[in-house]
């Protein structure tokens, strides 16, 4: 079978592990620095680098027949579509109904005196 396929020296796996741990340290460190709107971008970029290393080396995609990578990347493309369209909706809806997505806040007095009212409001959560 594909014995030859996995014959890449186990040392490469140790190198990949070291890089993954290093990236974890970097991403935790970066979380303590405020890059403003780039916080999310940096975190997701580092996570994607780590995920790519895991997929290519630990999951052997580097040596696999390309069909496996096609399946994997397709799922990511559809996930992107899934994210894209609701995002367009949410980002543009404010122009039609300002604050229309947010649940109605309880009157300030009620919110302060009775914290128990808050969780009750929490139920009627999201996007109406």
């Amino acid at each position, binding site marked *: 079978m594909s014995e030859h396929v996995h014959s890449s020296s186990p040392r490469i*796996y140790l190198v990949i592990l070291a890089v993954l741990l290093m990236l974890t340290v970097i991403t935790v460190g970066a979380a303590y620095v405020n890059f403003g709107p780039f916080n999310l971008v940096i975190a997701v970029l580092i996570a994607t680098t780590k995920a790519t290393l895991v997929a290519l080396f630990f999951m052997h995609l580097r040596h696999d027949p390309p069909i496996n990578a096609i399946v994997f990347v397709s799922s990511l493309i559809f996930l992107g579509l899934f994210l894209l369209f609701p995002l367009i909706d949410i980002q543009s809806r404010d122009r039609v109904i300002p604050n229309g997505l947010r649940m109605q806040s309880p009157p300030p007095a009620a919110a302060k005196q009775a914290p128990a009212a808050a969780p009750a409001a929490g139920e009627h*959560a999201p996007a109406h």
Partner: protein
Amino acid sequence: MSADSHAVAPHGAEPAFRQHHFINAEQQFSTSKLGMWLLLATEILMFGGLFVGYGLMQGVYPEAWVAGHHHLDRPLGALNTVFLLVSSYTMVMAVHYASTSNKAKTLLNLFLTIGFAAGFLVVKYFEYSHKFHDGLLPGRYFTYHGGGPPQQAMFFGFYFCMTGLHGIHVVIGMGLIAWIMMRTARGEFSSEYYTPVDLVGLYWHLVDLIWIYLFPLLYLVS
């Protein structure tokens, strides 16, 4: 996968584990692997729904998300990331040793993988019990009195759904690895046939992959 391979074929003969509808062992291996990748694609889409919901609601209630994530313990989350990354390494080593017919080292690495997975769950247990104690729970069970936006209840809804579904995958993974250990101990695998080890490895790496995204999005991004 077959219920197979109790007998390893004599050298040069048709291997006993090959099922009749495959041309050869290589094709059987590739097919099993493709099937596993299709399963992993569905897993990605299942978690994807939660990620998309989390991202969208973060856009709507940014202040609740910031307040909510301040309740998460970054060092514990980072420790769990290390546990899963190292367990992925021991898993890939187990696959490597299975593919070179090294039974003892395969078993050792599978055992270490289960050990790190258990460590992950222990840390998760302490995190969860702390949240339960503080009343940082989803929806109407949110009884935290420390103030902050009420929509934190929604943040913790996502937190428990995402880490909970991931935790269930960790438990399933531990079960699968234990099963693979039993079959390895019975001598069912060799460099000729180790497909189940490889596939369970893929599943385990996906569990790691999902945590790679969960950790920064839940614990780090403010």
